[in-house]
Structure formats: C-alpha cells, structure tokens
C-alpha cells in the first residue's frame, strides 16, 4: 500500500496501538477517582446560595478535569518515545517501511485520542453531577411552593437554576481545556524526542507551561508599562517565539466566573492551539529524524 493511504494506515496503526496500550494500563481508573471526588464535592457545598454552589462545582469540576488531563498528558507523553526505546520495540517498528515522523505523529495521536476519551468521560460525569444538583435544587424550590404550584418568583428561580446547570460557557471551557491538553501533550512529545528521562521531560514541560503563563504578565510589565530595557525586550521576543502563550487560556476562568465569551474567540484560541501543536510536532519530527537509536 503506497502513497497517502499507506501513510494514513501506518499512522492510524501506531495511534491505535498506543491507545490500546494506554487503556490496558488502566489509566482510566483515574477517572473513577475523579467521578467519586466530584460527586462527594457536589453534596458537600450546601450552605451557600445555589449560584455560589454551582460556581464552586464548576470550578472544582473544570480544575479536576484540567489537572487529571495535564498529568496524563505530561506523564503519558514523556513515556511515549523513551519507553519504546527501552523496550526496543522502536527497532522493530522503524525497521519496517515506517517514516520517523509517521511514528511520532501516530504516537501523539494515540495519546491525544486517550486524552479526548478521558475528557469526554469526565465531562459526562461532570454534566451528570450538574444535572443531579439541578434536580435537587429545583425540588427544594418546589417543596417550598404552596399547593404544588410555584409562584412567579419561584419559576424565575427554577429558570435561574437551570441556566446555571446548563451553562453553555461550561462547554466552551471544556473545549479550551481540551485544546490546552493537546498543546501540552505536543510539547511533552517533542521533548521526548530528544531526552530519555521521564522526570526531565515532565519537569521541562512544567517549566515551559509556567513560563508560558508568565510571559503575558512580563509583556504587560516590560512592554506596555515601558519598564523593560533592551535585554528584557529581547528575552521576551525569544520567549514569545519559542513558548506558547498559556495565559490565553485564562479565559477559561473568566467563562466559569459567568462572563460570556463569543464562540469566535473560543475558535480563535482553539485554532492557535492546533497550529502551535502542529509546529511544535514538526520541530519534534525534525529532531527525531536525526536521532540515533
């Protein structure tokens, strides 16, 4: 099988095998802990107003999805290539007519599929918890209603509860969390093409992640307020070129705080994430092509 269909077959074969291997390693058990933790949390906050309770729940849910995803993305990606080299499976794969970039892309897409499955499952659990919370809150309002018919004020309250639990913003936030995971996994996979230590790769990815967060603040202080000299400005230029701006994803917090954001803006950040991940993987491919195994 030659040409594009051959390339596609090889990439999907590697991606499928990577995904199956991860699933058989029981990575998804982490999700069980996530589900239990979130459910317990949802019924713990009962002494606040329903608006606050929903906000807490959304914050906890999205933070848990983010942290679980980031851990799996970083640790999983850091092991993708080094584990193949250690077990020597890479020799059998690359002695077949498989290009090195095809191998790298297949491994990345396998991990990305795992992250997507995890995110979808966690989001479904999250949605269930929100719906259960909605049912409980609505029932409480109905109990207060005399003769079972809610007053106009109570109807408004029920609508508010439903608006909180079925918030479109949560969906936008989840899409952005998904895109951030894709980018972080891309960075870790690229680092794994040049390093052998998992600890080094995870640590370096974390450093890049934090620098990516801080560069917007540095930009604000050094450029916009004019306090930076030539060195600071040059440093910022280099950092901006090499490291993605993770501060862009702080919009997730804004959305969860109740501020509405247009879908166009969400797609803009998603596009930025995909382009950056593609560029960083292309760099990883060039490094991996030259690597001696």
């Amino acid at each position: 099988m030659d040409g594009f269909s051959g390339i596609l077959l090889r990439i999907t074969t590697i991606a499928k095998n990577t995904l199956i291997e991860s699933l058989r390693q029981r990575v998804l058990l982490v999700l069980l802990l996530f589900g239990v933790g979130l459910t317990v949390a949802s019924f713990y906050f009962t002494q606040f107003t329903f608006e606050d309770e929903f906000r807490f729940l959304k914050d906890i849910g999205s933070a848990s999805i983010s942290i679980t995803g980031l851990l799996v993305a970083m640790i999983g990606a850091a092991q993708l290539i080094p584990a193949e080299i250690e077990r020597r499976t890479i020799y059998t794969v690359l002695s077949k007519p498989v290009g090195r970039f095809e191998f790298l892309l297949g491994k990345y897409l396998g991990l990305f599929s795992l992250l997507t499955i995890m995110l979808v499952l966690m989001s479904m659990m999250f949605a269930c918890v929100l719906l259960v919370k909605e049912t409980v809150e609505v029932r409480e309002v109905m109990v207060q209603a005399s003769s079972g018919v809610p007053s106009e004020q109570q109807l408004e309250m029920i609508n508010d509860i439903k608006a909180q639990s079925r918030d479109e913003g949560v969906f936008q936030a989840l899409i952005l969390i998904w895109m951030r995971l894709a980018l972080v996994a891309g960075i870790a996979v690229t680092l794994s093409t040049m390093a052998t230590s998992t600890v080094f790769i995870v640590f370096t990815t974390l450093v890049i992640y934090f620098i990516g967060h801080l560069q917007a603040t540095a930009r604000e202080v050094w450029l916009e307020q004019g306090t930076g000299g030539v060195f600071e400005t040059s440093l910022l230029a280099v950092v901006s070129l090499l490291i993605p701006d993770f501060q862009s994803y702080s919009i997730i917090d804004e959305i969860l705080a109740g501020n509405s954001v247009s879908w166009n803006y969400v797609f803009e950040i998603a596009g930025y994430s995909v382009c950056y991940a593609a560029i960083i993987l292309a760099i990883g491919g060039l490094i991996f092509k030259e690597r001696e195994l």
Partner: protein
Amino acid sequence: MSKEQKTPAVEVRGMSKRFKLNWRRGVLLALENLDMTVQQGEIFGLLGPNGSGKSTTMKCLLGLVKPTEGSAKILGYDSGSIEARNQVGFLPENPYFPSFLNGYEVLSYYGGLSGITGKKLKERSDELLELVSLKHAAYRPLRTYSKGMLQRIGLAQALLHDPKVLFLDEPTAGVDPIGSRQMRDLMLKLRDEGKTVVFSSHLLEQVEEVSDRVIILHQGLKLCEGTLDELLEVPDAIEIQVDDVDQASEDEIRQVLEKAGIGQVEIRRPRLSLEKFFIKKVVR
C-alpha cells in the same frame, strides 16, 4: 543470472561509526572502515565478543543509526531508505511485544505498519504462524509465551512483508537448546526459500552449524571474513571417520599409517556434542 540476482544482498564499503560521548569524554569507536559483502541466499554469521560492533553494524544497515563514514546498501538500495526497509525484516535481541496482545494481534499491528491488511493479512498471519509452529498459541496472550516462542513470533513479524533479507540479532540468546534448534531449522528453511539471513551470535557451535560465511569483528575492526571451509580448514591434514572398528583393526590402521611414514597420527573415538546429545535425549 539476472542483474537482480548478481546484486549483493548487503554491501558495506568503508563504513565507520563513532559515537560522541557526553561531557567531552571523547569519542567511542564502534566500527572502523568496515568492508563486508553478503550474497543473496546466504546465511551470514556476524561474530565477535560484546562491544565488537555487531549490533552497530545491524543498526547502520537498518538506518537506526547513521554511519560516520562510508556507505551500506541493501539489494542496491541505500540502507535506511524506505526502499531498503521494504526489503528487510529485523528481529532484535530479546524482542519485547506488549504482553496483553496475542499472536494474531502482534502480527496485525506489524501488518498495518507494512501496509498489509484484511484478508491478505489473515492469510499471511496463518502462513507465518504455521511456519514458526505457533498456530496452537495464536490466540494466547504473549505473557504466556516462553522465551523461544517470543523469539519465533518475533521472527514471524520480521517475515510479515515477505522481505528478501533478514537481520537477526542474537536470535537464540536465552533460549533453551530445543528452542534454539527450532530457530536454526527455521533459518535453514528460509535460506532454502531463497532468503538471505544475516545473524549475530555468541554461540560459535551454532554459527558453525548454519552459516555459509562468517565475519569476525573485534573492537570495531574486521578480523576476517570468508566461508567456514576457508577459515577453519587445517591445511595438509585429513580426517577419516569409520564405523564398526574393533581394537585389532584400529591397531592395524595405526601400523599402516606409521609404515607410510606419516608424522603424527591421532586416532580417537568420535563424540557427539553435548547439545546434540541433549536434543537426542529430550526430543523423542
């Protein structure tokens, strides 16, 4: 003889490989100016102690590392190129395959990488599982396989895309004598089918049994290369083996040889190798 048949299966010219060591600790010389030719249809043994350059030679031929100098070709194609890799199958030393996969699943994975799918993959997998005597264990997870069985499924994956040249790195390492015998029988069978087999081993008796030609490497340098007869024949001496000889006949033979003025005469009872004795006892 067609042009393709004349092309050597493997041709290495002036190949050197030096690895840069970290922290300015210098350079490690893994191979130095290696010339080597393997003809099509040969079983070719790569011999040498640990660190002699056997694995580096194989890795250069597979494109896993790049030679510092020189060139290597597989059936006329530059080693490491996609065209060359279409012609080769590789079994690394102590291969690892995910233990949760079964025999068919391993072959299905490598089939996808080789561009073989569907009915063709199923047929080819059946054929190879039959060849390596693993049909009975095809649906068992690999974690239940013995080391010899893992080597054999490794050989099956190497053969999946029907390559003309096979590289086997220590194919009998850690395998019991029966498994080792099965592997050697397979190598001979593959040669009879027209395949070229290049393999490395520390077990000299096994190499002697199957190889048509060998090369001996030491500290990255080639010490010698040739057929076993060329390398091992003792000049001006002959060996005769006669069955059913009693003591009287033996004395008579000795006297005849001494009368003929032959210098040193050594007459001894032939012995089986321990390996042959073991296999004779165990495999009935």
